[in-house]
Structure formats: C-alpha cells, structure tokens
C-alpha cells in the first residue's frame, strides 16, 4: 500500500496535517456506521468519490489506491459474499475499501516532514509511558519513505536467486531478504545518528 505523497495545491493539501487527520477520521467514522445495505454502499462509494474528486487528488489517484489494495479487496469480498450474502457482503467490502482509501488521502496529500511534526505532537502523550515521541514519529516517517528501498531489495534478492537457478521457495527467499533488510536497517541507523538523530 504505497500511498506516497504527491505535491499539489488542492483543498486536502492546504489543510494542516492535524486538521486533516481529524476530518478524515470523522469521515471514516461516518462511513463505518452507514447501514450495510445497497443504498448504504452507494452512499459510501459516493463519499469516497467526493473525497477524491477535488484538485490535488483526482480519480487517477483513487484508481491507484484501489489497485494497491486489490488483494485485500478480493479476499474481503469473497469472504463476505460467502458468509453474509450479496447485499451485506458488497456493502461491507465497499465500507472497508472506502475507509482504507480515504485514510490514504492523508499520506497522499501531506509531505512526510509535515506528517512527522504532526505525529510528534500527536504522540506526545506517550512520553508519560516512557516512549520518546520524536523517535516513535521518526520511525514511522522513515519506514514510510524507506518502503521503496525494501521493494527494490526484494527484487534484487529474487533476481540474485533466479540468476543462480533458485526456485520460488518462500523459505529460500525469506532468509536472505531478512538479512539484507536488517543490514539496511543497521546502515540506516548509522546514517540517522550521523545526521543528528539521537
């Protein structure tokens, strides 16, 4: 689910990270209490479309988000249809899908640096639990921006294995991938320390 930031100047971009989280949180909450019926599903889908039908987001972005979560979508839909029937199944799936995609607007329209500051503020009550809010926020932000590297490492490990005639075994893949990921995390930790992070 790579909902990465895209620069823009639409209404979502202009909201501060804090307000935006609150607004999106309320919308998601609203969507999740809509009754599980055909008209409820239509309403939810409408809200979702409306959220994206503004400058800075757009239908292209909505489609990309949808593609990113297609497997979750498929599995949820199959399970729901099987056990709950068509109406409830479709409505629930639309609801879950809308919740994920609407939350995705936050990452899509907020620069990570801004998200970082908002997270730091949002997590500051955790200080009482001996969690360092700056560190926690940073971990989340860095994880977000390191995803592309992990995706590349994954491809490199696969290619290295294919080049040596390796098959498609998950176990054979998992161990080297874990090793390169941990190595990467270790080096990243060094770089963060060197750049002034405690």
């Amino acid at each position, binding site marked *: 689910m790579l909902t990465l930031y895209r620069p823009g100047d639409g209404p979502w971009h202009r909201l501060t990270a804090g307000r935006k989280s609150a607004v999106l949180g309320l919308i998601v909450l609203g969507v999740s209490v809509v009754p599980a019926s055909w008209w409820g599903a239509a309403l939810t889908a409408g809200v979702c479309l409306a959220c994206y039908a503004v400058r800075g987001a757009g239908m292209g972005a909505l489609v990309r988000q949808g593609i990113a979560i297609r497997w979750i979508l498929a599995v949820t839909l199959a399970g729901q249809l099987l056990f709950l029937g068509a109406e409830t199944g479709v409505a629930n799936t639309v609801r879950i899908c809308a919740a994920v995609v609407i939350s995705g607007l936050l990452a899509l329209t907020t620069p990570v640096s801004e998200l970082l500051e908002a997270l730091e503020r949002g997590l500051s009550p955790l200080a009482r639990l001996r969690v360092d809010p700056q560190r926690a926020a940073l971990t989340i932000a860095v994880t977000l921006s390191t995803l592309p590297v992990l995706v590349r490492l994954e491809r490199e490990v696969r290619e290295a294995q294919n080049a040596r005639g390796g098959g498609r075994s998950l176990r054979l893949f998992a161990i080297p991938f874990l090793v390169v990921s941990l190595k990467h995390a270790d080096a990243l930790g*060094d770089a963060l320390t060197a750049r002034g992070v405690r």
Partner: protein
Amino acid sequence: MSYLDLDDVHVRLGDTQVLRNVTCSLDQRTVAVIGENGSGKSTFARLVGGLARAESGAIRILGLDPAQDASRLRRRIAVVFSNPDTQIVMPTVIEDVAFSLRSEKLPREEKAQRVTEALERFGLTAVADHASHDLSGGQKQLLALCGAFVRRPDLVIADEPTAYLDARNARRVADHLFEEGAHRLLLVTHDMTLAQRCDSAVLVHDGTIVAVGPPDATIAAYEERLRC
C-alpha cells in the same frame, strides 16, 4: 593545530579486536585513509564520526572528548557513506536535505534559505520535489553529500563515497568533497588518485595505523606491503 588526536586507542566489536594501539595526530585539512579490505578503515572512520566507541585509549576530536561531548561533536561532524540508499531518509529531495537541519535551533526562514543554497550548490534545484529514491545513483550520492554539507560541518568523514559511482559521478562527488571551505576532510578511499589529492594520508593495516605522511610516501608504503 591538530583536530584529531588518538592515543593508544583500542576498538572491539563483538569478539573481534578491530582496532588496536591506534595512535595518531592529524592536522592537515584533507586526510586520506587507505588500506586493504578488512584492515579497519571503516571502523576508524566510525570511531572518529562518533558511531563506534573506543574500548580504551584517549581521543580528542576537534578538541572534544567524544565520550563526554557526543552530541556537540555530532553537530559539528558529518559522515558520508558509500551506499546512498542507506543515507536517504525522506521521500523527496528537498525534505531529505531539510531533515538534516531538523534538530538545529534555527529560525524556519534560515533553515529554508540554507536548504535552497545547498540544493543549488549540489545541482539539485531542478529535482528538489522529485522522489529521492527515483534519482540516479550519482544524484543520490550528491543528495547524501548535500544533506551532510547543509549542516555546515567542521569535519566531513567520507567512507568510500565514490565506491558505487561511475568515473564521471565519482569526480563530481570528489570535487565537492575537496571544495575549498571551512571543513576538514577525512576520506577513506581505494582510489589512489583521490588519496593523491589529499594533503596527507594514513595507512591502516591489520587494525592499526602503520604509516602517516604525505600521500606519495604513504601510497608507496602501501604498495610495498601489497608486494610482500
């Protein structure tokens, strides 16, 4: 005046004695660190950069003791590594450069000003809003350098900064490292032409410093060792 004084320093990593009896005093503006793979060059660089701890011995970097003034030192030292991917932490170029100034107590406008200047200096202005991980390898390393220099460090430590680059990009990166400025440079490298460009060179062998002096003499000592 020397900015790096080590007296009988030992470094142990896990069960391995990686550096032993390291004694040196460096006062030249640019110093190359050369030696075979596994000789301890990176550990030496990490030690000076405050990323590795000494087990024993006395250390003074820029006149400060890293055991006592770690955070003050960190603010004055920048470290550049070989792999740019491990140094880039923010999704866009401009955010990544700005990240380096996060913990500096400066007014917002001044931070923004410094970031703009640094991007300009490293030729990254045109890609400021691009995704950092979509840059070419050469541009990524320039971004890593930019993130290091934007903090205006007194000492720049670079551990094989050109190892992943083609000749042209290696040259650009080296030119920035050697640029006239307030900073001193400690450069770990296997590229002898880069070592030649330094004012002085240190040879590390088997965990200890075996030669310090003008680059020509140190390189000759290195080649001598490689022959036997």
